[in-house]
């Protein structure tokens, strides 16, 4: 077992418009992508992000060795309750996941 951050190249998140956030997990090889993809099914990631699993979109991109997740923001970007205008910190939540 390892933490996600130890085996992938980069994890980033960003707004995808004011109402969505997207997380990109860059793996360096098909083997790492396969391992990460197997360890991160929708249900597990949704649970970790405290989301309804039906709201989490998941994309495997073998040509880029990328696993991508997108989900509606809990609070619209920049609204009163929002704490992270660019949605760039939420990716850090996944870094310590055991894979």
């Amino acid at each position: 077992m390892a933490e996600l951050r130890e085996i992938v190249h980069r994890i980033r998140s960003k707004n995808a418009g004011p109402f969505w956030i997207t997380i990109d997990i860059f793996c360096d090889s098909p083997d790492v992508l396969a391992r990460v993809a197997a360890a991160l099914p929708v249900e597990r990631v949704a649970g970790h992000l405290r989301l309804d699993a039906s709201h989490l979109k998941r994309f495997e991109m073998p040509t880029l060795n990328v696993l991508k997740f997108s989900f509606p923001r809990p609070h619209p970007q920049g609204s009163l309750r929002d704490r992270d205008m660019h949605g760039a910190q939420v990716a850090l939540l996944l870094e310590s996941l055991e894979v």
Partner: protein
Amino acid sequence: MMPTRVLVPSGVLGLGFDPAALARGVAAGPDIIAIDGGSTDSGPFYLGTGTSKYSRSVCRDEWRYLLEARAAAGVPLVIGSCGTCGSASAVDWMYEITCELVAELGQSLRVARLYSDVPIDEFRRARDAGRLSPLDPAPVIDDAALAGMTNIVALAGAEQIQAAIGTGADVVLAGRTTDTATIAALPLARGMHAGAAWHGAKIAECGAFCTTRPASGVIMVSFDETGFTVTPMGDGARCTPQSVAAHMLYENSDPWILHEPGGHLDVTAASYTEATQDGVRVEGAVWVEARDYGVKLEGARLAGYQTMMLAVIRDPRYVEAVADWAERLLAHCRELIAASLGLLDDTYNIELRLIGVDSALGGLERDHGSPVEVGVMLLITAASQAVASEIAALINPHLLHYPLTDDEPMPTFAFPVSPVHSDRGAVYEFALNHVLSLSDPMDGFRLRVDEVGHG
């Protein structure tokens, strides 16, 4: 058929680019220079107020370079989403800067302004006529939400930019535009491959972000009848199949599909190969035309007026129990506000954020270490600045001295500034995520053409 070459100087005006790379791009003979002027990424304040996030002097300096590059290349220069938010006021702000520079440079230009604003009355009529479709998730747009709406803009696509270029303009200053439309417009008008036009535009929308050296800014995209080639202009910058393909992911919730006015782009079957020494060749994207023509809307509404206060807790006993302390303080504040000001809970908003504990992620935070100090940020939002300030004044002594329990000496926390409260003025929120269907792409968009610097 000759290819159509689009020179993209930077991801956004105000972000900077390498002048030498721009000169290299001009020398390579572009057919058009296209740059983005904004986005929603900086938050609702800019659309709410119709103002620019970027410094006027920086935008002016960069725009001067681009006007000179335009003159040297002898091609149109197009900027989309003027002044961050693309409201009419932001388009006119760019126009004012352009007029100043034209006078300084001694140029004579035909300048087209494309306005994307949707007046509230027109929006209401469109809503009532059923021309509005919600995207997911869509805020509710009842009359209360509409009452506070300050600016609504429609995101122009290639058709409206083509109309602006079609006026014979040397410079097009466009209101809110999709990130891709200014780049895709000319290749589409000249009959280049439609899938490639939109795909290349998406890859190029952030300038050199799709290269190995994002800060170099400038790239050239050459569109033809089967695909496109993207080439960096910056010294030492390279495009690789990975750096190019990866940009489809950026700020995009679906990495294969991109919705645009009039249809969508599907890149599922796209291929990326090394072409020239530094460039990448892309083919295989597909443009799928929609049955109805629709444009996405953005709207910002007033969320209230805000006052902020910040205190710092250093006492280890308080730091250790800060979550309980914060909860008790907040409840105490609500009681004070009700008792002293007679305000009901739903007429104002007060939030306490613990800086150094969970301030970025809130309830999602998993790591709780042992901070030696905690910032306590209070955000008070009310229907007027006077009320928000009054609430802050009421809370101020309690934020300074609130004890952990009732039976202990009164603590005093650190206030880093005087006055401890800052009135932040009006705050806004994004209030639309909808598509407006149009019978003609120019419906609601407005073009104005001026001869600037003539005589």
